[in-house]
């Protein structure tokens, strides 16, 4: 069997574009899912029973569904529900953001709950509102616990963006597989795709390990 690695270089533009889309999807999803997660965690830990229940249900729901199903569901159902045809990128983004918000909610909930109750009481005793206490006292302390887990979530998200390829979003996976179909150079393109993901993912995974060592809390 003759391998033609030149094909990979020839189509490098498609691969670079795909990588940029992958990175963009990851970043924008996190930009939405971090505040989203905090909001859900605060709802869950707050005093309003209905809000706590709504938050818990949302989190349980999205943590117990395959992401690929959420992607398909968003693609077919969202246009009908919202009455507006969204482009594939936005649909994929929505599916990812919903999914990751649910995971972040759990992360922030555990982080916030790990800060001693007395800290909130001391803040309230000074006359702060619950929101001020959260912002000034609790979240900065929770951040230490939360950071390594968020970093892990980021890396998982980076890999999960590959799933939006099933709804034809031009990420790295989609572009690589499209070039494969066009050129019939299956082994070369698929290996190139794997190598690029590996090249981007490996350092990120190592960074996460370092963060866990640096900021991790011993049980």
């Amino acid at each position, binding site marked *: *069997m003759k391998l033609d690695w030149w094909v990979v270089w020839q189509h490098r533009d498609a691969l670079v574009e795909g990588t940029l889309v992958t990175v963009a999807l990851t970043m924008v999803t996190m930009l939405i899912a971090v505040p989203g997660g905090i909001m859900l965690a605060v709802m869950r830990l707050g005093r309003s029973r209905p809000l706590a229940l709504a938050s818990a249900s949302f989190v*349980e*729901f999205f*943590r*117990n*569904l*395959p*992401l*690929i*199903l*959420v992607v*398909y*569901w968003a693609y*077919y*159902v969202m246009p*009908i529900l919202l009455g507006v045809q969204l482009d594939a990128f936005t649909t994929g983004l929505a599916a990812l953001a919903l999914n990751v918000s649910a995971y972040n909610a759990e992360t922030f909930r555990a982080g916030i709950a790990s800060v001693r109750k007395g800290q909130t009481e001391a803040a309230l005793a000074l006359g702060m509102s619950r929101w001020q206490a959260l912002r000034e006292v609790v979240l900065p302390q929770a951040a230490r616990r939360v950071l390594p887990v968020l970093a892990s979530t980021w*890396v998982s998200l980076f*890999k*999960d*963006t*590959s*799933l939006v*390829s*099933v709804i034809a979003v031009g990420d790295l*996976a989609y572009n690589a*597989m499209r070039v*494969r179909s066009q050129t019939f150079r*299956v*082994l070369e393109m*698929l*290996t190139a*795709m*794997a190598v690029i*993901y*590996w090249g*981007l*993912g*490996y350092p*990120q*995974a*190592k960074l996460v390990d370092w963060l866990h060592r640096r900021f991790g809390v011993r*049980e």
Partner: protein
Amino acid sequence: MEFDFSPLVDSWQYLAGGLLLTLALSLLTVLGSLALGTAVGLARCYGPRWSRPALAFYVDSMRSVPVLVVLVWMYFAFPLLTSVTLPPFWAAAVALTLHIAAYVAEIVRAGMVSVREGQMRAALAIGMSRRQAVAEIILPQAIVRMLPALGSVLSITIKDTAIAAVIAVPEYMKRSETVAGQSYHPIEVFTVAAIVYFLILFPVTRIVDLIYGRVAHLGRS
């Protein structure tokens, strides 16, 4: 807005078959990855020194690459490299096992390491050999600590089997996709799919939490 669930009723056997395949693939993968992952994890802790960099490379690489990529590569590229063609189900089983075993290996390694040094020293002081200490003292405690993470491996496996749809494994996700496409009723089909997956996955996490709650004290030293 009208809902028409009749395509689901008509195709329920087809979908049920897909569900069985999902469960079969999940079970196979869990068993395979538990076996492989435990072997790799223990080897990283207690195995020969020369093997450690290679095993570390395997584990870290699987953490860095999406499941989709491993699945697709195993089904389309592997045959070209080795002249061995795996049918979709088995390609998926191998790919998923390799991918998830890496996670299991990490869980096992972290679990063993988390049991305090002092426990090993205490066991050795009584006169146990290293092997006995690991089997009697370290491993049981480590297993308890690993339970929540291992439980989530089951959950992750079931979710990842849905991705096997992209290499045409006729499991539940793929079959739902087919029915949705043919019947032009995607909302109903995918909503039911969501409910089905939820009904499978939700108890899995709950049962793991329950078991862990019961035995957690056994792992604290």
